[in-house]
């Protein structure tokens, strides 16, 4: 399973929408419930799913799922 596929599962779970179509360009502009509170909820869920711990400053400016996937891959690689 790729990072993007795993993230898609997390997003579907957090936003309680199994029909959600998640691509690298998916962002808060397409998901109405993705506000500042749900962004943090999503980040905590991603931490649990991937066994990571984000620094807050790394996730505040993420623009879309693609940037999140790249960050996850960097952290998994030890970056």
């Amino acid at each position, binding site marked *: 399973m790729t990072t993007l596929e795993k993230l898609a599962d997390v997003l579907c779970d957090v936003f309680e929408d199994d029909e959600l179509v998640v691509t690298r360009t998916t962002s808060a502009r397409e998901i109405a419930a993705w*506000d*500042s*509170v*749900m*962004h*943090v909820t999503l980040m905590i869920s991603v931490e649990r799913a991937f066994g990571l711990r*984000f620094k*807050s*400053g790394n996730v505040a*400016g993420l623009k879309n799922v693609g940037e999140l996937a790249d960050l996850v891959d960097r952290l998994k690689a030890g970056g």
Partner: protein
Amino acid sequence: MTRAEVLLAYVAENHPRSVRGIEEARAVDPAAWDAVAEQFLGWAEGVWGPTGWQARCIDAFMRFSNDVIMSQARYEADGHYENSSFAECNEHVYSQRDVMDDYLWGVFITNFCWSHHMELSLFFRDRFLARLPGAPAIVEIAPGHGGWGVWALSNRPDARLQGFDISPSSIAIASSIAKAAGVSDRVTYTQRDALDLATMPAASADAVICSFLIEHLEDPGLLVANIANLMKPGARGYLAGAITAAQVDHIYLFKRESELVALCEAHGLRVTETLSVSPKRTLPKAKYLPRSMGLILERRDLREF
């Protein structure tokens, strides 16, 4: 466009996740929000210029807000605040100039862009500022960004203010905001630990402002004792604090409003009014309701039982 309209457009373009929260803040009182936002953003523009304040202040606000919600999520999971000592906070936050600058500009914007802080701003304006005595000598303990005290000076041309903060960033930013507001000639900021103020002349202040310092201390009682010591008979105080509301540098966990009231009463103060406010939205399945509380204080001069 007004500065408030520029802010709303900038957030919609660059930070769509935060649009809802700012709409909630404006809905508290749209006319008042426009006025408070214009005032604060006018000061920010005075510091950063007509095109510089958006990226500097609003982006800092987004980072700060994200940090706060992340801290709250960790607190929900762990049941305690992330740090428990001043030394830890000093290492991670207070001694880091870049971190502090960003932090303080972020906090500055929360005064009207968080709905519950907008409510607190109106409480400060209507229940504290509007009822200060004539020609007040004001002491601001830990002014941080300085916005509260500068608001008092802008509102009261007969007022003077002394501010004390341990952070060089605070002194620099508060001074720059005072200059932008045109009140520099009536304010002095000094780098000094708020807990060392016991050496200041007792009963020397007509008003004391201390906004969101108390939860950053290992011994909040010492701060309240200093506030009481500074106040003249008949003086008014404004104290704000956080209750089950995490932040990277919150170390004293207040769990109930009554704890703040009791602390003030135990140190010779009368709490005449309070306002406890919370965000419109909390984390899903949250156990703790984060609150901010404002208290209006008077010195208790008669023996009371």
